[in-house]
């Protein structure tokens, strides 16, 4: 194993542990928004897709990369917007009550 891979594994491990710590104890109301919001973050694959499609390569690679960009962008944009829509609903209701 190269030292680059080892370093990457460390990064992965620490991010997982930190992530588990950050998300503990979420009230049930927020389960769906948390899921769709984190789902949008998993659209980070768009960065990888940009690098693949953007770097010079033959046509097939650019096409595959471009499809990946489309998919990941839908994931990102759709995920964040739909989460916002849901949370807006929660907000509206809370102010009404108080």
């Amino acid at each position: 194993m190269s030292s680059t891979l080892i370093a990457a594994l460390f990064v992965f491990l620490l991010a997982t542990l930190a992530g588990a710590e950050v998300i503990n104890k979420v009230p049930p109301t927020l389960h769906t928004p948390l899921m769709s919001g984190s789902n949008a973050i998993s659209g980070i694959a768009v960065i990888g897709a940009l690098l693949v499609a953007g770097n010079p390569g033959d046509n097939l690679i650019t096409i595959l990369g471009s499809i990946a960009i489309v998919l990941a962008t839908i994931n990102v944009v759709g995920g964040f917007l739909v989460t916002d829509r849901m949370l807006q609903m929660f907000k509206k209701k809370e102010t009404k009550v108080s």
Partner: protein
Amino acid sequence: MDISGFIPTGIEISYLVATALFFIGLKYLGSPATARQGNTIAAVGMLLAVVGTLLNAGVVNYSAIFLSIAIGTAIGAIGAYKVSMTEMPQMVGLLNGLGGGASTLIAVAEFLRGLPAAEVPSIDSRVTLILSILIGGITLTGSLIAFAKLQELMSGSPITFPLQQPVNILLFASFVVGSGYFLNAPKDEAIFLGLTAIALILGVLFVLPIGGADMPVVVSLLNSFSGIAAAAAGFVLMNNILIIAGALVGASGIILTQIMCKGMNRSLSSVLFGAFGGVKSGKGGAGGKQEDRTARSVDAEECAMMLGYAQSVVIVPGYGMAVAQAQHSVRELADQLDRLGVDVKYAIHPVAGRMPGHMNVLLAEANVPYPQLYDMDDINTQFDRVDVALVIGANDVVNPAARSDSNSPIFGMPILDVDKAKHTIIIKRGMSTGFAGVENELFYLDKTMMLFGSAKDVVGKLVSEIKQL
């Protein structure tokens, strides 16, 4: 080729800031007061990372990129505004799949890029490529099947076929063998594409045998997978932000999965490998003595009287309410009862519906005040003081067999104790069993009344009856 090596420092710093924003955003998403802000913070982080990447010196195909981004943004935005809250589970399911699909395509494209090069890819990149197509492929097709089930494009009940387990094992074994071969022949295009195909098939087979009631677990698990798939793509590209953000999502998905499993008192492995369907037929025989019992059916007028003259009513919503889109009628019913001075509460079971927090989202859409929603643990201590428990389209989550009958497949699952209320009204389309396929003895109790019909129609009738009280 290590692309990240060429990235100037400024771009790395944009990644660093984006990473911080993801963590802060996710932290904020976990608390009601800051959730919306958290989502925005995470979105800003994503924008920053995208802009940083576009400034990458290695990026040249700008026209292809901007076109793709525009298409993706348009579809995503339209989808996000068009989708109804009832359809949220399938929306999330579909989005998970797209993320997995993107990760898979990245791995395939990177493999193709390496093909013409004279040097062979390092052993590290061979391993990461294999893992990436495995996780990405399963996420993609698994999510698509989950989507099809939730959207009712296909049956939501567990789909099993003879020799299912052996087929799965055989497929997985051939993936392992193929991987071993690929490690020695990293330029073999056929074997790589074959491995990709197997991963895609595994995803289909993985979700097919899982039934509707287990969907909350599957959706959160696939959410986790979509994160891990992104992280795996990050390993292929050796790109830290993909690894970190992916790991973050992977961890949050696993936590939600655990919460859902706890809500059903089932282990993850029993959800994934022991489809309820297998138990179902066995239970049918055991229900023999229940067949001579009759359930009491009542009409809307009588129910309206009971509800209107009660002091406290607890509404228990379930998937049936979501299917019938009855949340607005339910809110109206609660308003009418409130007008008559009835104390109305909602009892939310953790796994009611098809995804974590499904009922909360629907009731929020109908503007139900948040303080009226009670979690299972808080409401269960109160049921003996409740006059009427109104169950709308829920079944397994109120089945007392989970408490008392150790032979029941749902035994041990925490339930809402509606049978402890003075009266129980159950709105249901018919006497059919829930997704677990288990008889519900609650229906045959003396104090239980069945009100048959679609949730929306029946609740609508109740509203007009109560208006006349």
